[in-house]
């Protein structure tokens, strides 16, 4: 847990007094990632660096796991906080092993222990210890260096990590990969992380909490979804962008939105029975599954109504399938590219778990706004948990 209590930094410059950080108070629960977000010069980096006293605070206090850090000496405090900077800051004169072992050595670990730790950490980021331990930083690519930067900060297993735009200098493709890796690690390690970024997309992806700063003040401290859905003022609104609802797509997993009990037909079912199901539900098409409940095609209402035979003889191929662990962004992107408004959702083995529809998505995303309207107008929204009116699928190819 990191708690900031009225943390303030006032710089006296020749141009006058500048308040870089103005009575910032917030609390990041243990095991969560808090992204400090804002335009440059907003005080986010200053706030971060006051936590490990790279920048001494003018006033205010910092608590880590309930302990007032002003009672600790600076060296002890810093050795117990992982610190990652944008320029990575690997020491070029030391091998990777030496770089990772710095803090454990400072803490007086035994040699066998810190060497084992270095190898273990390299494994954690999928770099082969035998190949990398003895190399120097200049022999590594930027992405590899940044991974080392992160595990170096993790070396002594500090409860708290401070990261100052750690992935800012990496190309977009590698950045995505490293972000994913970091999130995967974080799931296991459960560090309390303060993370400075100026990229709203990165913040939405990484954060459990987003703290938006402007002109030294903490403007909004909220979950990513609430920040995007309910920006506190015009500044936040402008900062998160006009497409903020689209950004929320990334925060929601398919499993949260899909209809978990979709109607299906088997190849041996007759078209007649398929039509009856579609007719009673108002569907324009229905998913066909095989013996092990894997979606293999779809049957159209128009066909079922006018033709005779079994579903297995009159079905069309599925245009797109989505995994339940994907986010809605993937779903939306696939819907646009395949011109479809619904998709079967499957697990890793390809077994059908549900169905997701465009209407379902918009309904889900709109819920948070409707709740707000409800309190304002006392007008109850129509209960419509899984609106599943499939649009007619034009031009589908026969499977």
């Amino acid at each position, binding site marked *: 847990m990191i708690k900031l209590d009225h943390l303030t930094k006032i710089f006296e410059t020749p141009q006058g007094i500048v308040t870089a950080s103005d009575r910032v108070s917030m609390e990041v629960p243990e095991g969560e990632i808090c992204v400090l977000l804002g335009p440059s010069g907003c005080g986010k980096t200053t706030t971060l660096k006051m936590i*490990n006293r*790279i920048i001494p605070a003018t006033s205010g206090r910092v608590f880590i796991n309930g302990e007032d850090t002003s009672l600790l000496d*600076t*060296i*002890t*405090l*810093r*050795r*117990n*906080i992982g*610190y990652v*900077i*944008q*320029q*990575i*800051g*690997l*020491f*070029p*004169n*030391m*091998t990777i092993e030496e770089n990772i072992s*710095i*803090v454990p050595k*400072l803490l007086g670990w035994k040699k066998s222990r810190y060497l084992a730790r270095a190898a273990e950490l390299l494994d954690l980021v999928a770099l082969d210890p035998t190949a990398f331990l003895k190399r*120097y*930083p*200049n*022999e590594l690519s930027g992405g590899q260096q940044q991974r080392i930067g992160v595990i170096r900060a993790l070396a002594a297993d500090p409860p708290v990590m*401070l990261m100052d735009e750690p992935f800012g200098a990496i190309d977009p493709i590698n950045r995505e990969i490293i972000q994913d890796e970091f999130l995967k690690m974080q799931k296991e390690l459960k560090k309390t992380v303060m993370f400075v970024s100026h990229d709203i997309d990165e913040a939405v992806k990484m954060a459990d909490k987003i703290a938006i700063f402007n002109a030294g003040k903490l403007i909004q401290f909220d979950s990513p979804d609430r920040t995007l859905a309910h920006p506190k003022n015009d500044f936040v609104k402008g900062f998160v962008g006009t497409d903020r609802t689209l950004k929320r797509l990334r925060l929601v997993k398919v499993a949260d939105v899909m209809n978990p009990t979709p109607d299906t037909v088997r190849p041996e079912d007759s078209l007649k029975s398929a039509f009856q199901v579609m007719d009673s539900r108002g569907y324009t098409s229905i998913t066909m599954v095989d013996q092990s409940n894997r979606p293999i095609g779809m049957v159209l209402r128009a066909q079922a109504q006018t033709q005779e035979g079994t579903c297995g003889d009159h079905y069309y191929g599925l245009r797109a399938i989505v995994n339940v662990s994907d986010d809605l962004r993937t779903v939306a992107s696939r819907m646009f590219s395949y011109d479809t408004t619904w998709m079967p959702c499957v697990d890793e083995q390809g077994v059908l778990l549900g169905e997701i529809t465009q209407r379902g998505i918009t309904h889900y995303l709109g819920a948070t706004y409707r709740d707000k309207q409800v309190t304002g107008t006392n007008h109850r929204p129509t209960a419509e948990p899984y609106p599943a009116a499939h649009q007619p699928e034009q031009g589908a190819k026969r499977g």
Partner: protein
Amino acid sequence: MAKSKSLVFWLCALAGMFTLGVISQGSGFIEGVLEYSEDILYLSQQHLALSAVSGGLAIALGVSLGVWLSRPKQQRIAEGVMQILNIGTTIPTLAVLALSMTILGIGSTPAIFALTVATILPIVRNTYTGIREVPSFLKEAANGMGMTPVQILVRVEIPNAVFVMFAGIRTALTINIGTVPLAFLIGGGGLGELIFSGIDLDEMPMLLAGTIPTALLAVLVDICVGATAYFVVPKGINPLRTAR
């Protein structure tokens, strides 16, 4: 193409050296120089001793001064001190020798003093610049990890500046070897004895018996310092040993 060109160059060089050797041998020149072999040996030792003491002093003082000036506390005075040293080096070594003789008398002590003064600047300058140019983010990273200022200096700043520092030491020692002959003028000894006596007596072989070993020593020391730098500078920051 390039290979055959360099082959031709080396053949010409070899032929040139051979011809030179034949001519000098024919004129009895080599014998003339070798007559002084005992003097050469004795004076070379003296020469090297002077260099070693003054060079060692210059390195010890220069590195310490450079490190001290690079500390943030000294930031204000650093450039001023550097200017004073600059002026110190601008004064001709001969003048420094003469001045130190008036205070310290004659012999090797004033010579060592003057030589140290003459060679300290490149060492201080390079130590100071080398450490100041260690990227600030490395220092920030070291700070953020909880290193003490001394640990940062020893483990981060100096290792990352050591290549530049060695460049300064190399220049300084080469200058030093070349300047030692002047020490003879205030009774400091060294190969200058053969050189200046050779000039005075118009004895070409004697003169060369002083100059050739001086030149060889300078080259030798340069190579030694270069080799030391090659192995002492950590592999990760050694431009001569970069893996890529």
